[in-house]
């Protein structure tokens, strides 16, 4: 017999915690990184077909929009990196106390932004 009882509300009502926020962002950035790496691979492969391909991509990445895309991609990578380090530590069985998970979660969330700026500036030979 089919159960026609309603399902109690879940994601609609459940509070977000730092750790759940980091977890979902980890997934989203993971997907973004997957796509990015593929695109970079295609970009590099396109070089084999001639210089103009490189010039075209370079033109796009040097534009204002391109720079924003770059920043976004770098943030996605730094976030994933920091979050992955957090996961590695947890896989070893450490850092499961509620306070620790909050602090490490905040480090990942906040730390990814300055790290993004630093990597971007290094990439632009500004530092």
């Amino acid at each position, binding site marked *: 017999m089919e*159960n*026609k*009882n*309603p*399902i*109690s*509300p*879940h*994601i*609609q*009502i*459940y*509070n977000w*915690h730092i*750790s*759940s926020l980091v*977890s979902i962002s980890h*997934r989203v950035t993971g997907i973004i990184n997957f796509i990015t790496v593929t695109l970079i691979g295609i970009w590099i492969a396109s070089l084999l077909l001639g210089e103009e391909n490189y010039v075209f991509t370079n033109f796009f990445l040097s534009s204002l929009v391109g720079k924003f895309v770059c920043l976004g991609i770098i943030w996605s990578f730094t976030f994933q990196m920091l979050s992955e380090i957090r*996961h590695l530590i*947890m*896989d*070893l*069985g450490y850092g*499961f*106390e*509620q306070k620790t*998970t909050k602090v490490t979660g905040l480090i990942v969330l906040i730390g990814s932004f300055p790290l993004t700026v630093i990597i971007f500036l290094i990439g632009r030979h500004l530092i």
Partner: protein
Amino acid sequence: MVQLNLPANSKVEKGQYYKDKTGSKNIRKVNVYRWDPSTNENPRLDTYEVDMDNCSSKVLDILNKIKNEIDPSIAYRRSCAHGVCGSCAMNMNGKNGLACTKSHSELDGDIDIYPLPHLKVLKDLIGDLSTLYKQYESVEPWLKTSKVNDKENIQSKNDRAKLDGLYECIMCACCSTSCPSYWWNGEKYLGPAVLLQAYRWIIDSRDEDRKERLKKVADELKLYRCHTILNCTNACPKGLNPAKAIAEIKKMLATA
């Protein structure tokens, strides 16, 4: 399957409003999820104005007050009222917990009370936990030993200490029903409560079935749907750490 939206029959509608009749100046609005299986109506959110001057400190006291003085038709599970039985687990202001140990002074603003998330509702605040109990049964939560002597089955102090933080679990299901992985894969993924119980028997020094137990949970769906979201540890009203227990199982499997 991930289904973010509630199905049509589960959408929560606006319910009735019960105005305060005591004339109290210290009023708090309490929104309670209601669903009556004898009607074909959708669930609704009823609002009660509760006189807080004459109400004890816990959320369960509010519910008892509503049931005794305002609306006797409201249904919820409760028994010991001391955080031991785990009956009154529910979602209060967006977080799972036991109504009997949760002080309403800790909650901000109007109080929203829902059943434990993503369960089939039986009535009002009562969710159907039979899947979880079946999963609990599947980990065979009892001591397996070949010893048949009539003496005590002795354990060293160290080995006994390994059970601390595990044996206290009261199976209230706050953790499992807070876990998004359990929401989307509740039929297959065992969930934090059951995995913590599984771990409790895996590391019991008196149990002789460790290898078999590990083999049984080592499954893509049963165990590895845990993505360390940590909602479970945040929710546990007994202050236990199911996420860590699951991590320990994963570690044992990785290093075995």
